[in-house]
């Protein structure tokens, strides 16, 4: 079929306004938030309902057109960078919250619903949707599920996968597959919903999501603790958990990040501190008081030189503003900012932090480190200028070494950013040839022509 004929077929499905073919339109869907080269798609299609989405998938498959689904394009591993000459299928036209069931505490949504809007809608009904990726004001729930997005609350509340009860998705032939259930328990058949989480659009195209909701938090207490070394701070993280306390959030910032944040927005941060922990405990008010006191004591035992406990909403917000400012503040220093995703078992955080220091020195690169210390998910952030080709070469080598060290410490390639294109070449080093072969076999059965987001995850 000619290109014009295919375009006409897409227009027949979604209408001509929802098929973009111009060079300029296509170029604006050639990238995502990863620091990777752009790839031009042949066209961009925007279905606005389930039927259109299914027909779009089928038409791509019938014509052997590589298909990349895109929500808000905020992911950091290149998962939504299209295949050359392929089709980008936008989900932002499928943005309805179909049901919020207060009694059974679940919601049914279309994949293009923006995460923060959903969380706010749920909160207005007295319920709580905990996953809070940094991009939540724009990222979509479909993208969150496809990438298994994390966030600051991962330690206590888990990540997106812990809230996926079911996924309806289109297979590559245009059949609607229903997986999971609206019930809390469901062990019927293969866990296809589980398979779809983190599949990055390589196995099917999400049509609807059934998401678990939980009761709201009754009380919370935030605090900021200052440490003389990153080692002391990271040992405190392990000590808090070892004391059977699981804070909602347990974040770490190194000295470079603290100083950069303070320069960015004067907030009275301890710029001479080697490290800072930002901690929030939540739950029943009595439990919160008890845990906050214990955390304070543990921090003191681990050489914290200063502990500030937020007494009201304004002080609490000030604590978290410092954390929210970390990435913008670092990003303001240099033109290119590579936010990595080094994740290790909690006990290995001191070792990973030492490794990052070593890598920074070895490659003569500025690296600010902050992240979710409580779940072992660090965000070493390399500040560079991609136009400086010599430095960029060192950045690429440093990134590879960060992965190597994380894996050597029993960690993983990605805690929450996904594999996408950026890390697909490293996946064998975490899994095994057999695991990769098994994954490829599964992919080839479910997507024989290889049209669903080709080359992502498994290369």
């Amino acid at each position, binding site marked *: 079929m000619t290109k014009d004929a295919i375009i006409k077929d897409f227009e027949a499905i979604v209408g001509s306004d929802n098929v*973009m073919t*111009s*060079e*300029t*339109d296509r*170029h*604006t*869907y*050639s*990238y*995502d*938030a990863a620091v990777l080269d*752009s790839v031009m798609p042949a066209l961009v299609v*925007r279905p606005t309902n389930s039927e259109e989405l299914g027909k779009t998938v089928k038409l791509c498959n019938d014509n052997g057109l590589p298909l990349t689904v895109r929500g*808000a*394009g*905020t992911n950091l591993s290149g998962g939504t960078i299209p295949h050359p000459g392929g089709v980008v299928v*936008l989900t*932002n*036209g499928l943005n309805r919250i179909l049901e919020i069931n207060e009694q059974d505490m679940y919601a049914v949504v279309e994949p293009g619903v*923006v995460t*923060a809007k959903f969380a706010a809608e749920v909160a207005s009904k007295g319920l709580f949707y905990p996953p809070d990726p940094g*991009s939540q*004001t*724009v990222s979509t729930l479909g993208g969150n599920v496809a990438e298994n997005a994390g966030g600051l609350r991962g330690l206590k509340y888990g990540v997106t996968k812990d809230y996926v009860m079911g996924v309806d998705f289109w297979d590559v032939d245009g059949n609607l597959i229903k997986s999971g259930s609206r019930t809390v328990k469901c062990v019927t058949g293969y866990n296809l919903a589980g398979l779809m989480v983190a599949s990055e659009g390589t196995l099917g195209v999400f049509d609807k999501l059934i998401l678990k909701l939980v009761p709201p938090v009754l009380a919370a207490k935030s605090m900021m603790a200052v440490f003389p070394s990153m080692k002391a701070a990271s040992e405190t993280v392990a000590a808090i958990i070892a004391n059977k306390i699981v804070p909602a959030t347990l974040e770490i910032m190194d000295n470079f990040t603290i100083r950069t944040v303070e320069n960015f927005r004067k907030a009275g941060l301890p710029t001479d501190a080697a490290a800072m922990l930002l901690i929030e405990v939540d739950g029943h008010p009595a439990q919160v008081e008890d845990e906050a006191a214990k955390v304070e004591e543990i921090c003191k035992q681990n050489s914290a030189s200063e502990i500030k406990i937020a007494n009201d909403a304004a002080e609490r917000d000030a604590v978290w503003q410092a954390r929210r400012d970390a*990435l*913008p503040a670092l*990003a*303001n220093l240099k*033109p*290119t*900012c590579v936010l990595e995703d080094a994740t290790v078992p909690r006990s290995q955080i001191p070792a990973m932090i030492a490794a990052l220091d070593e890598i920074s020195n070895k490659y003569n690169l500025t690296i600010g480190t902050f992240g979710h210390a409580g779940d072992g998910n660090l965000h070493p952030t390399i500040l560079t*200028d*991609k*136009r400086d080709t010599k430095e960029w070469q060192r950045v690429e080598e440093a990134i590879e070494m960060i992965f190597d060290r994380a894996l050597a410490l029993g960690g993983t390639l990605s805690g929450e950013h996904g594999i996408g294109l950026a890390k697909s070449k490293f996946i064998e080093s975490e899994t095994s040839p057999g695991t990769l072969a098994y994954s490829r076999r599964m992919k080839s059965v479910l997507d024989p022509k290889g049209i669903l987001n080709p080359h992502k995850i498994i290369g």
Partner: protein
Amino acid sequence: MADIHQLATMLKELDDQLVGCMRCGMCQAVCPLFAQTGKESDVTRGKLALLDGLASEMLKDPEGVNEKLNRCLLCGTCQANCPSGVKILDIFIKARAIMTGYFGLSPVKKAIFRGMLVNPKLFNHLLSFGSKFQGLFTKKADDMLGSSCARFQAPVIGDRHFKGLASKPLHKIVPELDTPAGKSGKKVAIFVGCVIDKIYPNVGEATLKVLEHHGVGVFMPAGQACCGIPTISSGDTSSFDKLVEENLALFEKGEFDYLITSCATCTSTIKELWPSMYQGSSANRMKLRDLAARTMDISEFLVDVLGVEPAKVGGNKTVTYHDPCHLKNSLGVTAQPRTIIKASSGCEYKEMAEAGTCCGSGGSFNIAHYDLSKKIGDRKAENIVNSGASVVATSCPACMMQITDMLSQKKAGVNVKHVMELYAEGLR
């Protein structure tokens, strides 16, 4: 027209600024245009990628890029919320100047900017002529709002409900002023602005009444020209430079502490664009920097300099406030206009939802993309109506025009006022 390689070379001047975009996409959360269309080319990340693509010669369609670049309200919300601190408005305005240099200015804009706008006397004369005959082509739409609509089908006007030209512009009512400082000990220069002069002279009169009430001396020279925002946002740098020079020459003649405007757009243009975009002599650039440092919005002057505080009496009319983009996003002025409303006799203040979201006017965006402008404005109108207020106040006459259109078409029964009108009404 230069070749595309030359255009790319010119755009490379922006490279250091473009590279600051992390492509995080957070601009999607705040862009009023993206909220309507959901298209990446309508949001800043997409536009920056297009400019980058053209500069690196990955793209071969400068017309396409230019069209997308011009689909922007220049509201600055993205810049105010950009995690990387990218100077987006600066990039867009410079890029429009480069594009206009490449494509040339459209004949219509050339006639308006270079034929009329840079010649204030001719401009005033033509609009004065227009005000006499506008009634032949328009009819009243809403008495309370003072809006009109087209009597016959008219392509430019469409179904707009607009405020017509005033029968007597401010420069005819008060040709010029130079009064000494009174009890406040302060003297200000007033930059009137075209829309206040020709459409809302009552806002200008209210501003003068307020200043007189507070014993502020006023220098208001005759012959003021447009601040230049229509020219520079269309990339016409030569007309912009002429307008800046004409205004600078007028205001140089006076002695004053501050330059005050009652138009958010004029304030931000004088403060930010006059010093940064003027290409003339370095001596003038120094003078513009000094002038910009002394320029402020009227509410900001009243609250921050004179110390006006809210009155303690209750009110019989509920007033809500719309933040003009040029005050909120560009200058960070949000509290002072609200303080003035609360200090206005008989006004009970009520905050509306999304008060800081653009009303959809966007200057020439409203003319080129009225359908989109209207969709954005409709949302603003809904928020105004839902606030339950009987009056919506703002600090920008361009926003007043847009909101009047939206409320008039809805027959919402909500009046539109400038903050200075409300405040002046209560002064004896």
